[in-house]
């Protein structure tokens, strides 16, 4: 009897370990395992342990390599920016559509919506599913001359553009500026040494990559979110069951306040005088400009790449019109 009880007790003690399902994850963070994002993923992994998943994390400072290793089967899941995960889920990969989420409140509504069990079918595409989305901050335009404060003045300017970001390349061409192909590791140097006039990045880059050097005395940061950068976790369907995947999305949504706190501190770290405020009427003009481009990039017409998912654009349009019902797009004939 005692022996039986002891055996039962032993099994009970090791049960959490034995039942935990191991999932390896390649995690992208520009500063690796000591980065803010990686640390947030550690928090996520710990929460997920309570749901029976034991994530084994591996840091990557090169996002391309992280996704490449995921593709090669080196890991069961990957945490990377929405720009890189677009091939795995076009719907969530369109969260970062240009100008589609002008406020963090809209982003909050979107992520809460996507974390619902009802959204589960949209989170699965082919062999992959989305395990969670967390914000990484809005992308802003960094300029070396404050007088560049309208879209018209961007014509002819050189813009450091991520060479794998088709929608950004299209936008740069649309405004008749010059694409200077760059990647995450070298765009800051190009902006700081003056070989480009403009760059776009989240607030994080201002201090860490010393973008204030490129801004100098004359430049600034345009206070208008060009797009929302998010970190998304993608896993192979075989790595995790549907129920746990839903729990995972809810865990990731629970990390929204933590992620936003980090973003707020990065944005607050930028001196007020550096921000370039643009008039409300100009903003309305830009929103329409972005909207027209999104439609083109949804349909792949007029030379635009076909990169955006129609359902996501419709959802984002609904969110914008719920928070700003008087916007002209809400009554437009060609709503997204």
């Amino acid at each position, binding site marked *: 009897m005692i022996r039986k009880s002891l055996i039962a007790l032993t099994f009970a003690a090791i049960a*959490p*370990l034995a039942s*935990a399902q191991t999932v390896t994850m390649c995690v992208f963070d*520009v*500063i*690796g*395992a*000591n*980065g*803010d994002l*990686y*640390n*947030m993923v*550690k*928090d996520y992994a*710990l*929460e997920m*342990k*309570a749901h029976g998943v034991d994530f084994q994390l*591996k*840091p*990557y*400072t090169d996002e391309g390599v992280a996704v490449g290793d995921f593709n090669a089967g080196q890991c069961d899941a990957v945490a990377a920016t929405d720009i890189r995960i677009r091939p795995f889920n076009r719907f969530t990969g369109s969260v970062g559509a240009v100008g589609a989420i002008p406020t963090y409140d809209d982003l909050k509504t979107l992520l809460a919506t996507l974390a619902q069990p009802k959204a589960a079918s949209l989170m699965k595409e082919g062999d992959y599913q989305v395990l969670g989305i967390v914000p990484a901050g809005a992308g802003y335009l960094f300029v070396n001359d404050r007088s560049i404060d309208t879209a018209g003045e961007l014509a002819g300017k050189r813009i450091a553009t991520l060479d794998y970001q088709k929608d950004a390349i299209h936008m740069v061409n649309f405004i008749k500026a010059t694409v200077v192909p760059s990647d995450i*590791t*070298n765009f*800051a*140097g190009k902006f700081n040494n003056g070989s480009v006039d403009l760059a776009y990045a989240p607030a*994080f880059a201002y*201090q*860490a*990559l*010393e973008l204030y*050097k490129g801004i100098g005395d004359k430049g600034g940061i345009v206070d208008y979110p060009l797009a929302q950068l998010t970190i998304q976790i993608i896993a192979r369907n075989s790595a995790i069951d549907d129920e746990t995947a839903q729990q995972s999305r809810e865990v990731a949504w629970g990390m929204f306040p*933590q992620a936003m706190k*980090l973003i707020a*501190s990065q944005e607050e*770290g930028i001196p007020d005088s550096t921000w370039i405020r643009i008039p409300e009427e100009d903003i309305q003009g830009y929103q329409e400009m972005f909207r027209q481009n999104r439609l083109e990039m949804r349909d792949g017409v007029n030379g635009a790449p076909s990169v955006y998912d129609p359902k996501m654009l419709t959802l984002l349009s609904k969110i914008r019109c719920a928070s700003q019902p008087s916007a002209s797009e809400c009554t437009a004939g060609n709503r997204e």
Partner: protein
Amino acid sequence: MNPSTILLVGNKAVSCLKLSVLTALLFLAGCSVNPIYKTTGIVLSNYSESEATPYVMQMSDPRMACALGEGLDPLMYSFSRVTDAPESTGSLLMLLAANCMEFRAWEAELAYLRADFEGQVPKAKDAREEAKRLYAQTAKRRYIAFTRAMAAYDFDPAAEPLKCPELENDQAELTFLVGLLTGMQAIVNDANSGALAGIPRNIAPQTERAASCVDNEKWGGLPEAVRALVWLLLPDTRPASSPDPWIVLRRSSELGVKSGIRASYALEAVAAETFGRPDVLAEVIAGFAAAEDTIDVWDDYRLVDKSAGRVIRFSSDKYWTSHYGYRTPQAFFGKLSPERSTENIEVMDLDGLL
């Protein structure tokens, strides 16, 4: 001398004393600072720099040194209220105080890893939260130590072009160099705290530039190791003709053994963890442990070598705890596996004895 005479002399003495005190008070009435405080501050500051710092640097007990930092820093730096701030000593004391806080954070992190290994999620979450808070405090202290070290040598890390500070002796060079390293550590600590401390991240590129102001060979490759770590973090900062950062880190660690100060090993370990290179981490820990028998530690800066040793041991402990649930057993320091090497050992035939 009869009692009345004694009384008379005594009264005179008391009157003289009262007069002196009164004069002193009148003299001081227009001053905002007690000159004794000011003098004491100057004396203490000079004593700390010329005697206490070299003494502490020779210590081999990082825990005692950190206690000294926590205990003395507020007293020592309070003299900045009455005289010039004792920046260089203040930088070292705050650095030691930060080490104390980091030792506590390390224990909390190991507790988190242990609980995580055992699958005890609430316990792991609690320990991780505690570690975050302690890392935030460590980061704040380290940032203060960094700014004091820069101020001590009138160095503006943001200035361009770079203008190296005048470092009059070895102690000044090391204080400046360790100050830079502390700035880098503050960033790492802040990231591990969940960015609770809000340390400016531009310290990294600033440190990369400033590290070139100190002789690399003399300081066991530490300046180049600092630069190489930043090159890995921010590839844009790497000069076009520079060698591969991993090679630089390895050479720096080897140079550290030759110079008797193995701080570069600690940086190589941090790089290996940051960039997910368990192969490099294994070599670093093995290399550091192997050097224990051969190294001739630079006596004047023994504390730096010992502190680096604690960083390496913590790296090893983290690995052991996350993989096996317990910290590195003493006999296994240098290895990342609990397997004993029992191959090729001759054994005797017991048949005749049974």
